[in-house]
């Protein structure tokens, strides 16, 4: 913002108030009415306890205090952050590798591969959950994963009975599902890099890792940024993959904040406290996004 204020006459052309209202108006109105207002009204419930059935009772800051003493909140927050970090990093890394692979190795023949690898993202979560339960099964028969483990002389594992292994199954499932998606997203960004820049860099002797590090990576920063925001946005709010695969168990070992919020508000009948948990999640998301946004803005204006 503010990068082109040096030419006053330009500013006057772009300062078209009528156009701004017409173009921005509809999006802003829908967004404010259907999202912001409900969020604010939900925030109001933070000061109440109760449910739509029993009515609400004002409790002041009790919910906030409770939040800080609720060990379930902290364990689900821990899960959410761990999951978001691991999955976002791997998602972007694998997606980027795939996009480089499409661009430099497969070149024009990549359409079919791209389509096939992209495909899992269109599968309904219910289906993917079912599939991975079968892949990692121990009963009634060993699934493929346990068969492979057995082939290498290991003992078959009950993957879903331990929060640690269950975490990794969820991670693998989400990576499997989203890797192709990020591959295509980032590939589209790489295609925007002019060919002659890459070719001339090759002529200058850049190749392999060096070419990618010094030429391709800086030029694909904008699309990388979109992908990161995208990915963090999805992983911090993970809900249905967990629901489909582990339902939050064993114990609450794989319960993310979203699921805990949903359970509290709707199953445990405390909408007020549920809103408080959602508020916590919103604040975390906000901090993370603003952080990414700020650092990217700096990079972009420099680069």
């Amino acid at each position, binding site marked *: 913002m503010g990068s082109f204020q040096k030419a006053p006459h330009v500013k006057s052309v772009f300062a078209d108030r009528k156009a701004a209202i017409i173009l921005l108006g509809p999006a802003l109105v829908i967004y404010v009415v259907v999202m912001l207002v409900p969020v604010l009204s939900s925030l109001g419930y933070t000061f109440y306890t109760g449910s*739509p*059935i029993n009515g609400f009772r004002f409790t002041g800051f009790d919910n906030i205090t409770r939040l800080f003493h609720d060990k379930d909140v902290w364990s689900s927050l821990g899960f959410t952050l761990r999951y978001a970090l691991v999955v976002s990093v791997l998602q972007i890394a694998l997606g980027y590798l795939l996009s480089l692979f499409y661009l430099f190795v497969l070149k024009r023949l990549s359409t079919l591969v791209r389509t096939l690898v992209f495909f899992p993202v269109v599968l309904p979560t219910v289906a993917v959950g079912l599939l991975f339960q079968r892949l990692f099964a121990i009963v009634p028969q060993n699934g493929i994963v346990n068969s492979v483990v057995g082939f290498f002389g290991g003992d078959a594992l009950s993957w879903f009975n331990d929060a640690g292994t269950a975490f990794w199954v969820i991670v693998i499932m989400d990576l499997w599902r989203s890797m192709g998606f990020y591959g295509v997203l980032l590939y589209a960004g790489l295609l925007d890099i002019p060919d002659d820049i890459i070719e001339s860099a090759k002529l200058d002797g850049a190749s392999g890792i060096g070419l990618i590090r010094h030429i391709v990576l800086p030029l694909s920063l904008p699309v990388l940024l979109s992908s990161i925001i995208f990915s963090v946005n999805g992983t911090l709010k993970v809900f249905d993959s967990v629901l489909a695969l582990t339902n939050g168990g064993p*114990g609450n070992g794989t319960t993310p904040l979203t699921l805990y919020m*949903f*359970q509290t508000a709707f*199953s445990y009948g405390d909408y007020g406290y549920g809103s408080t948990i959602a508020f916590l999640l919103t604040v975390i998301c906000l901090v993370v996004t603003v952080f990414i946004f700020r650092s990217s803005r700096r990079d972009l204006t420099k680069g």
Partner: protein
Amino acid sequence: MTTASRRRVSRRLIPVLAVAGATLLALSACGTGAGAGTGNGKFTYLHVTEDPATPAIIKELAGNECTAENKSLPYDDQTIAQAQLDQKVQLLAGQKALPTMFSAGGAPAVTQSLDKAGSLVDVDAALTKLGVADNVLPAAKSTIKALYGGNDIALPYQFNIEGFWYNKKIFTANGLTVPTTWDELVADAKVLNGAGVQPFATGASGQGWPITRLISGYAFREIGPSAMADIRDGTSKLTDPAYVKAAQAVADLGAKGYLGKAPEAVDYNTIISDFLTGKAGIMYMGSWVLPNFADTTANKIGADNIGFFPFPTVPGGKGSIDQLPANIGVPTALSKSAYTDRVGAWTKCIAKNFGSAALKKSGQISGFKVNTPVTTDALTTLVQDKIASTKTSVVWFETYFSPKASTTSWNNIASLVDGKMSADDFMKLVQADQ
């Protein structure tokens, strides 16, 4: 691409988008059904997708015995997944828009809070006023009262008892007799395990109740029929020695491998399949499983080969073997604000005809009197006899728990039978969420 061609594209694209949008917006308005609200001139039944049998029976009544009622107030069917039921019921209750008849919450706690808020019809009073109160079996009535805080607020579309089903052939082949005490049960399990047969078909994947109900079963025999009500009333705690002993007894079954290789990974389908393929010798289950037994493609061991025994007694325990756990499935309630004379007419017709229609159509045993005799198979008759002879019924482990404690119980039971968590810790964890 030149600017001119770009311009052409955009000129084409924008009207297309606009027209497509407008058309579909208009189309979407056509897909309107009536809202789930009251006074829409329909007999709306919001039920869980997980129970397709009950609405099918009512639909059949609408076309036969209850044609007149259906004409004046047409039947309308809405479904919701059980996992989302509590949310939906709360949202509708918040708008005072509960459907005429609906599945009133997955956990009894939700049903009771609806009742406390004055949203539900007193079924007993309504049926008495309609002159059809005697169509509800006394056992069903007392079960409903036991489940929902002494109030009769549910229609007993299902009436289930629970206990152990066993494979007669496997029992004979291993020289086993039907156990009447817990020690005999464990001894039988030991023999089966030694013979390479999995003793119990059970599991906790997705839902933990198939195992947690063994804990309450034991506790009822040890402490007596008030065992779980004492927890609700606060006169006892799950951490008291008698309750921990029950959890320990179940944990021991797991430790010895009697519950199968990895019960945490076994889901409901697999439990039934393990039993019906002869892989396991015994299964704890409710009588809602009877249609599975009658399904000849799934049932490889044959219905004649299946026997039933109630939860055995515990030495020195205060409970008796004829106190069977009973329930009515997901409770179906009537909304007070939607209850009109025409709804009353429907209710009357259902009360008179549901019992025989359910039995005839899908072999479903309900808490309504069977007014037209229906020939039933041997197992159904056996369950009906058991119901008729049961004087005191008991509940299941999570009946009186807060929803949070129920979740905790279900999600941690695998760790208990797996040895990852001690009986003491398990009960402490569940008690803490009470």
